[in-house]
């Protein structure tokens, strides 16, 4: 993949230097310290892991079309859903937006030449690859059957390759810690003159909040998983009931990270959505400070709600009430963001380009995902719904409907910037619609079958054959969803070679990356030093609308 990316550029007449064509060797890519190239390396890596995770998902869906199971034995089914969860959470969702788009855009958005620590940045990528390789190695050596949550005592007594897998996750975790250290130092110290905190794009604010969560949460899960490895290897027991240890303590420590991990996944998505919505509504964002501070509020409150995963794990009712209450409070800052985005669109001149369609899809799905989260945060409904497909549907709405749609929206929005070429708008819009439809067909039936009582992680349901209808519907939807994900993979790759070269600002957007930076950017990002004079998002609805129309016509090759 990297070799193919390098090919282009030299063939163009009027050769223009940029970060892609400065050097063409594989070595120059593998030893690069350029944050943009590292972003591209991450893009290739996470796409690969997403592809593997999707294969596991397809196997799960195929298995569930029959009440008796058709493809996998029980052991292999356990290993399949574990592989799906582990790859998607640790090797895709947690890293996708920060590591790909964050690495690429953060320095440019604040007017810097690179991250504060470029070599540490490259080290993060290598650690990510080593961690991912160990995880894949553990699958190749027979797999892992404890799910992505690794609850003890299952994970300490299981005979599968859990230790290798956990070491891989540990290394990946430290990779994201180093990325977070880099983000924090970069945002604090590398801003261009005039780039005050309140002139930062909201994208930067959300990445700052994400970095804080990573810094505070990831080490806790790292040590927790490490203790499981120690218990398996040396026979020490901190979580073993027979040694006086407490298995529930594992759950507390695990969710202390893994609830905030949801915000590691969704906060960068919020940042992407803020950028897209304000650009395609041609209006300054409504309530800039509310959105910025709600990110920080989410980062803070996110650490106080982990117990809502443990309402039925021997937690006292008093604890349950407190965790439930804070979980409800946590819905407020998320809702603030949604209202502000909606208010931004109100009376704006909204353009339904591909990134905007993805962003609107995000809004719809995130609202459903968030509101069903409230069902699960209330004590009595949770007792009925926990451990069922209702939960599966809820977190897929948040993680797939939220994070992946925002990720794809961001990729489509900044693709012209990253590679200097445009993709087909027609195919882009079609893919957004297909993914939205496929997603809902896949996961909405899971709410219903979960409410009826279908437990998660089961692959037989022959006692209730009537559930087959929902499962077949879900599997059919996942096929549509799979086609939807394949479409961008094809037309975006195609655009690398045959896409129409575009200027620095194909969307007529505001921001340093659009207004002061070539597409693709030069290695130093900016030809001249940056001095920020304007406030962020200074769109003028009336004036910009006309200008934008022209550029869109131009970009679509005459169609509109």
């Amino acid at each position: 993949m990297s070799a193919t990316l390098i090919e282009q550029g030299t063939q163009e007449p009027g050769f223009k230097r940029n970060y892609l064509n400065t050097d063409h060797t594989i070595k120059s890519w593998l030893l690069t310290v350029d944050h943009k190239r590292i972003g591209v390396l991450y893009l290739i890596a996470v796409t690969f892991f997403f592809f593997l995770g999707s294969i596991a998902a397809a196997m799960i869906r195929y298995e569930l079309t029959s009440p008796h199971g058709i493809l996998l034995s029980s052991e292999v089914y356990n290993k399949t859903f574990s592989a799906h969860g582990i790859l998607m959470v640790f090797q895709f969702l947690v890293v996708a937006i920060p590591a790909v788009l964050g690495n690429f855009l953060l320095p440019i958005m604040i007017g810097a030449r690179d991250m504060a620590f470029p070599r540490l940045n490259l080290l993060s990528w290598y650690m990510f690859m080593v961690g991912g390789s160990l995880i894949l190695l553990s699958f190749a050596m027979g797999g892992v059957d404890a799910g992505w949550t690794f609850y003890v005592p299952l994970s300490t007594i299981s005979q599968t390759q859990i230790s290798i897998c956990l070491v891989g996750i540990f290394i990946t975790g430290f990779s994201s810690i180093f990325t977070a250290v880099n983000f924090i130092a970069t945002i604090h110290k590398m801003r261009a003159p005039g780039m005050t905190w309140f002139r930062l794009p909201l994208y930067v604010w959300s990445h700052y909040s994400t970095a804080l969560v990573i810094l505070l949460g990831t080490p806790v899960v790292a040590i927790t998983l490490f203790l499981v490895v120690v218990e398996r290897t040396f026979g020490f027991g901190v979580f073993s009931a027979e040694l006086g240890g407490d298995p529930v303590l594992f759950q507390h420590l695990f969710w202390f990270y893994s609830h905030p991990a949801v915000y590691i996944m969704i906060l960068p998505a919020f940042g992407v959505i803020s950028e897209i919505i304000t650009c395609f509504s041609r209006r300054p964002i409504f309530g800039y400070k509310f959105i910025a501070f709600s990110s920080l509020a989410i980062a803070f409150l996110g650490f106080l709600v982990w117990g809502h995963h443990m309402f039925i794990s021997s937690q006292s009712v008093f604890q349950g009430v407190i965790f439930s209450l804070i979980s409800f409070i946590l819905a407020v800052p998320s809702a603030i963001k949604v209202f502000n985005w909606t208010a931004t669109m109100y009376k704006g001149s909204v353009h339904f380009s591909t990134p905007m369609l993805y962003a609107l899809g995000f809004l719809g799905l995130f609202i459903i995902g968030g509101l069903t989260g409230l069902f699960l945060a209330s004590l009595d409904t949770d007792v009925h719904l926990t451990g069922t497909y209702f939960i599966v549907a809820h977190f897929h709405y948040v993680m797939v409907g939220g994070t992946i749609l925002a990720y794809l929206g961001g990729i489509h929005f900044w693709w012209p910037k990253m590679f200097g070429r445009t993709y087909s708008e027609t195919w882009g819009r079609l893919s957004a619609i297909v993914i939205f439809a496929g997603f809902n067909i896949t996961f909405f039936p899971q709410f219903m079958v979960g409410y009826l009582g279908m437990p998660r992680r089961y692959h037989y349901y022959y006692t209730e054959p009537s559930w087959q209808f929902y499962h077949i519907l879900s599997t059919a939807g996942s096929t549509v969803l799979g086609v939807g994900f394949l479409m961008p993979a094809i037309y975006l790759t195609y655009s690398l070679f045959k896409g129409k070269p575009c200027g620095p600002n194909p969307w007529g957007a505001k921001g340093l990356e659009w207004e002061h930076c070539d597409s693709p950017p030069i290695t130093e990002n900016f030809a001249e030093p940056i001095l920020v004079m304007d406030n962020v998002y200074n769109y003028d609805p009336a004036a910009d609308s006309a200008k934008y129309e022209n550029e869109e016509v131009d970009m679509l090759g005459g169609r509109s």
Partner: protein
Amino acid sequence: MAHAHPAHEGPEVYFQYESLDQQQESYTLGMWAFLVTEVMFFGALFLIYTLYRMKFHEDFFLAHEQLNWKMGGLNTVILLTSSMTVALAVHFAQKGKKAAQLTCLGVTLLCAFGFLVVKTWEYGAKGDHHLYPNWTFSYGHEEGKEHKVKSFWDDTLPQALHIEKKEMHGNPERAKLFFSIYFTLTGLHGLHVVIGIIAITSLMILIWRNSSLITDYVPTELVGLYWHFVDLVWIFLYPLLYLIPR
């Protein structure tokens, strides 16, 4: 952001920075951010320790008597000394006194090795007493070793003051839990000491060679910050593990 320094002699400024100040501030901030992560990393273990100690206080008290507080005390002194020398090294680095800086770092390195030697003794002794918390563990099964150690604070003084002494019973399985935590905490701390040794050694080699990487005091300061953190963890570990009150 300050204006770019004129390109006269002095520490190298990397391409991504505008000025030396910016570079130094970035490095220091990055190190602090990393130490926040480290605090959370050890924090989780301290939390586990606290919960179990509250729950199984008697067992933990009896198990902790198997640890040698003199050895731990010696290590505390060693690490405190090294903290002082590393602070002096940063001081001399800022003054540009290379020989003194190297000497201080050398003493720090010696202390680090000394710490590891004492720790290895202790670990060895635990092995002799079958206190590794795995299948070889046998605690409280040896006859005649029923916690007869008389101490001033726990026996002599309470008797002199006619304070009723609470009878304590230890559960060997809980003692195993104590030693699990003991070995995990001190083992991870020891690993950090080893990383510190590698960092200090590399720093000394670079200074010795007059490498352009180290024309600046900040690398010494970063290593110093890290080393202070390692010491600080021990300052918490020592009383928590070795000096549990009755």
